[in-house]
């Protein structure tokens, strides 16, 4: 366990370092963009631009700029070029909204993904299975922005069933919180419900041919117990794996589109704003934040795996 933690921590640092360097470099090769000129505003004299350049350190070498940037990001007093606000502060403010969106969507996609996958597998080849297959493929194929726009049009603007936009804090009004998030949750979850139900269905059909399932039947277990305790239980292990990866990626930036469309002031919303403004400090900080979640959930997946499958041991290099 200790060896596992050390190794994971090491690779985490390496990944975050690589991501930050890449982001920084990409930003610095964007042609014809000078942050000092942007900050000085249109029509500013060259002297003002020069003084800003010196004040912010844009005239130093790239490695020095990178180190200065990283030091600020990690110590929490990085200031954005546009608006001159504390970036880490804004990210922290955005986290509750982003997590609300992601966790709620995750609950929905796991519940329905597993439910539909299970029903499909148990009734494989039947009418229910075929209907669910069509729904799943449709769900996987629908782009988020289209689904979100259609839901907004028909469930919000035209009928007023759900509020169109914005985010209400859970602590302020839980009912309104959920009410505002239902459409975004669905927008995020639909594709993943389709995907997960297909993956689970195929895992379960494979598991049904396993020897231990035959043994379970030979013991005289009820069909339901055979399906849940043996087929489903073993088929969920790979589902948990992809869930960890998908959830990490979602928190780390996968919900950007949804946050933008539904005006949820989360981390993704801030990311869009910063990219539009070519504002390096928040882009750096948000990218690191996203990468951190991806790497973190990767590690959590491995830990969960060892719990779910006794054949897997943490710290063994066999995997």
């Amino acid at each position, binding site marked *: 366990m200790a060896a596992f933690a050390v190794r994971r921590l090491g690779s985490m640092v390496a990944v975050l370092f690589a991501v930050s360097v890449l982001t920084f470099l990409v930003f610095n090769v964007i042609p014809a963009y000078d942050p000092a000129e942007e900050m000085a505003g249109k029509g500013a004299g060259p002297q003002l631009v020069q003084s800003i350049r010196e004040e912010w350190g844009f005239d130093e070498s790239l490695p020095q700029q990178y180190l200065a940037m990283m030091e600020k990001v990690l110590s929490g007093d990085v200031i954005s070029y546009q608006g001159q606000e504390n970036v880490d502060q804004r990210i922290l403010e955005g986290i509750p909204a982003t997590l609300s969106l992601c966790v709620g969507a995750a609950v929905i996609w796991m519940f329905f993904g597993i439910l539909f996958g299970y029903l499909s597998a148990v009734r494989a*080849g039947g009418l229910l299975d075929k209907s669910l297959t069509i729904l799943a493929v449709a769900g996987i194929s629908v782009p988020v922005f289209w689904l979100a726009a259609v839901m907004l049009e028909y469930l919000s603007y035209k009928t007023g069933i759900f509020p169109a936009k914005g985010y209400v804090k859970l602590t302020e009004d839980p009912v309104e919180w959920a009410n505002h998030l239902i459409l975004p949750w669905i927008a995020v979850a639909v594709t993943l419900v389709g995907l997960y139900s297909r993956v689970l269905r195929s895992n379960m059909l494979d598991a049904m041919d*396993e*020897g*231990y399932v*035959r*043994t*379970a*039947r*030979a*013991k*005289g*277990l*009820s*069909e339901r*117990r055979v399906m849940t*305790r*043996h087929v489903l*239980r*073993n088929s969920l*292990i790979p589902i948990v794996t992809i869930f960890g990866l998908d959830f990490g990626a979602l928190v780390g930036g996968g919900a950007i589109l949804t946050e933008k469309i539904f005006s949820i002031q989360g981390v993704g919303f801030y990311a869009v704003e910063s990219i539009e403004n070519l504002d390096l400090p928040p882009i750096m900080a948000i990218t690191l934040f996203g990468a951190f979640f991806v790497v973190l959930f990767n590690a959590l997946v491995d830990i969960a795996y060892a719990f*779910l*499958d*006794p*054949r897997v041991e943490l710290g063994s290099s066999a995997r």
Partner: protein
Amino acid sequence: MSGGALLSVRDLRVGFATEDGPLQAVDGVSFDLAPGEVLAIVGESGSGKSVTAQTVVGLTRSPGARIEGSARLGETELIGASDSELRLVRGERIGMVFQDPMTSLNPVYRVGAQIVEAIRAHRPRIGKGEAHRQAVELLDSVGIPDPGRRIDAYPHELSGGMRQRAMIAMALALDPEVLIADEPTTALDVTVQAQILALIERLNRARGLATILITHDFGVVAEAADRVLVMYAGRVVEEGTLDEIFYDPQHPYTWGLLGSLTRIDRPRPRRLPQIGGSPPSLLDLPQGCSFRPRCPHAFDRCAELPALDARVPETAEHRDRCWLDPETKREQRQVEGEIGLEAPA
């Protein structure tokens, strides 16, 4: 139903609809299993031996399967019985052990939990603690050392032999009348094989447990069986007591199987003997005797399927499907290379 049989299978037929057409995996198999008897069903892969056994307990689940015939366990008809009726039989009255104990045990549950599950599926009133205690006892009875600790092991933490012992313990958890062991030793080392067979024999004697032993290995048959059923391409081609099959095999296919045994009591052959050709596709069986294309003794009458009849004088229970007359066969066997064992003095 013949007198005293515990399990009586009559004219069992199992057909499957495959993409390449219908095939008959089991074609009119009949046998009786007496209490306390070990009946070996011998045959190559695809001979229908496993399908026969699995169909009896309703584990042939392919949606395209067509099952006919009868299998009576005491007063209970198993063919066509509902799933809930069969559930009362499986585990409770017929225990099963399968070939590969690694894949036959669920890798994510402890061995003990899997035995407890079998007990409590049939005896819901038995508490978890009591079921656990019984499971320890069962592991002990199949010769697993330190059962109190092994019960908490996961399948992958046990050796192949230990896993198979645990499987047997699980199959015996509810003290069934019949044990079906489907290639129970195939995946094991030879020494472990012998231990497992000895265990099955011991349980068979101690509990009066009737056993169906499915195998392709005549060595296993010789060690454990009382009676033998030889299957080929879905049909029984010969049936008799262990001695009848070994000392006076009637069907050329049985000779072939016996001739393929490596023997330490004979000079070493230059090549391992084998049966020429390969088993026929069940989709395209030859007319008449299915063994005809591979049989060196086939003659024109073999185009007609011989019935499974007693052909050797004075042995009503020794039946076979071969048109050759027993005397000719005895001569042929001598010429061909001493197939069958010498009768004991």
